[in-house]
């Protein structure tokens, strides 16, 4: 069981490997090309994610990782290629319809609504949901993971610290009850101890809520510790893929991304 692996794993190497539940494909990109004006940011990207996997996309600044996520959720629609989510091609569909379908992104830089209270930020995450009881249950669950947010409930989002804002950003994403969660650079600009708790939470969500997670990170060490599999991206294409364990022991990966 991959679940056992993750739970048992310590801070060090020993990631879960490539044996996550297979067969149930949640998301599949094939030959996705995205442009900013005439500049080709994604030059034919293909990868897939199965149900309840944690996948990391690693790469340097400007490799196209964020564009990749934006292309999936429809913020920068691809010019060609296929994006298949739960069996249907979603290329060109509006962002809000994808949120309704359980595909939720927590963007880079947290993007907390600064003049909305913490509670309102959380309610924005559940914007499309009508099940009052379910929303209340999810709120209780989230506040049990991040009790600090309960203490800050009435404060404006803009007054929170960076770490608290990242907790709020992930919580807001969870309030949409995603079946698949896209996380863009969740560790960016945070203190090591906060990063630890954020990544513990990512693992917890994956296990307890059975959420499929696509993680984009510059911090490859960290990402490979939680991910089952990873893809390495260089200037708009996937150049390497494998299980987290394989990539961690790969010499070229070590040299380029793991600092040694």
């Amino acid at each position, binding site marked *: 069981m991959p679940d056992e692996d993750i739970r048992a794993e310590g801070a060090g190497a020993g990631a879960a490997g490539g044996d996550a539940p297979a067969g149930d494909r949640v998301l599949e990109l094939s030959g996705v090309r995205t442009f900013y004006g005439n500049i080709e940011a994604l030059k034919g990207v293909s990868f897939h994610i199965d149900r309840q996997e944690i996948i990391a996309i690693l790469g340097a600044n400007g490799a196209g990782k964020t564009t990749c996520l934006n292309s999936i959720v429809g913020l920068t629609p691809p010019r060609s290629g296929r994006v298949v989510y739960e069996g249907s091609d979603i290329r060109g569909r509006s962002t809000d319809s994808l949120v309704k379908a359980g595909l939720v992104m927590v963007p880079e830089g947290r993007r907390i609504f600064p003049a909305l209270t913490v509670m309102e930020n959380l309610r*924005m995450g559940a914007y499309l949901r009508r099940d009052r009881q379910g929303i209340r249950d999810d709120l209780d669950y989230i506040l049990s993971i991040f009790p600090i947010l309960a203490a800050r409930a009435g404060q404006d989002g803009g007054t929170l610290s960076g770490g608290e804002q990242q907790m709020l950003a992930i919580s807001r994403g969870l309030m949409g009850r995603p079946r698949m969660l896209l996380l863009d650079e969740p560790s960016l600009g945070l203190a090591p101890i906060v990063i630890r708790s954020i990544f513990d939470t990512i693992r917890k969500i994956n296990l307890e809520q059975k959420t499929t997670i696509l993680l984009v990170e510059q911090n490859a060490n960290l990402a490979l510790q939680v991910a089952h599999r990873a893809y390495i991206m260089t200037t708009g294409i996937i150049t390497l893929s494998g299980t987290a364990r394989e990539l961690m022991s790969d010499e070229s990966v070590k040299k380029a991304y793991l600092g040694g």
Partner: protein
Amino acid sequence: MELFLNLCVSGLTKGSIYALIALGYTMVYGIIALINFAHGEIYMIGAFTALIFSMVLGAFGLSGWGLLFASGTLAVVYCAMYGWTLEKVAYKPLRGQSRLAPLISAIGMSIFLQNYVQLVQTPNVLSFPDLIPDIAILAGMRGVASKTQFAILAATAVSMVALTLFIKKTRIGMAMRAVSQDPTMARLSGVNIDKVISTTFIIGSMLAAVGGLLVGNYGRQMDFFIGFLAGMKAFTAAVLGGIGSIPGAVVGALVLGFAESFAAGYVSSDYEDVVAFVLLIAILTLRPDGIMGSATTQKV
């Protein structure tokens, strides 16, 4: 002393009407960063439709409060449809283009609507009937404020409270605030931006229609051109308070109303428009973000 009181009341009254129009400017700007220069025309259309509906319904025998509310409601609904259509026709196709494109389209719509009403309703100055019935308990206050002034203040207060509740308490109101703070994040939360924009235009137009109905009763005459100056003044009020800020629009409108009223009373009524635009120039020079506007909204 009585002059001072009278000027206060008339400043408050003017300010209230400016506020009703200024809210439409500031809300649209808050959502899509567009100065909707055709907004003054919606207010003018509100005044015309209120007049037309009151004549039609009056002919059917309606009178008193019933006539006022029925024709007011119809004018509000009619203007809501105008505002919705205006956005769909003149601004939505230009979304994603340079910021100048919708601005030019707005000026074009303003000219078009003025000329359309001029053609259909004649360029003549029309007189507006006194729709507001006598209010017995106010008889003793005659020296300070007229029944029309009371009605304007009351209607404005009710509109403001309703708007505040809508923005603060409803789901779509929360989405409007979210869109004005971070449209991309609002989309990622599942907000349909088109719906929020339409709602904003509808609400702004409804408030402008209330303003049109009230101003008809106040000035008792109007023509197709009233939207231009009122629009400019309301725009001034919105900038004065800090464009994009809802409380700012109200504060800016009241400041403008009082300034004009005192200028007219103590200097000369020839100078009231001058005061309005001197204020605009002064605020743009000294405090470009307005009274309640904040520079932090540009934070990256």
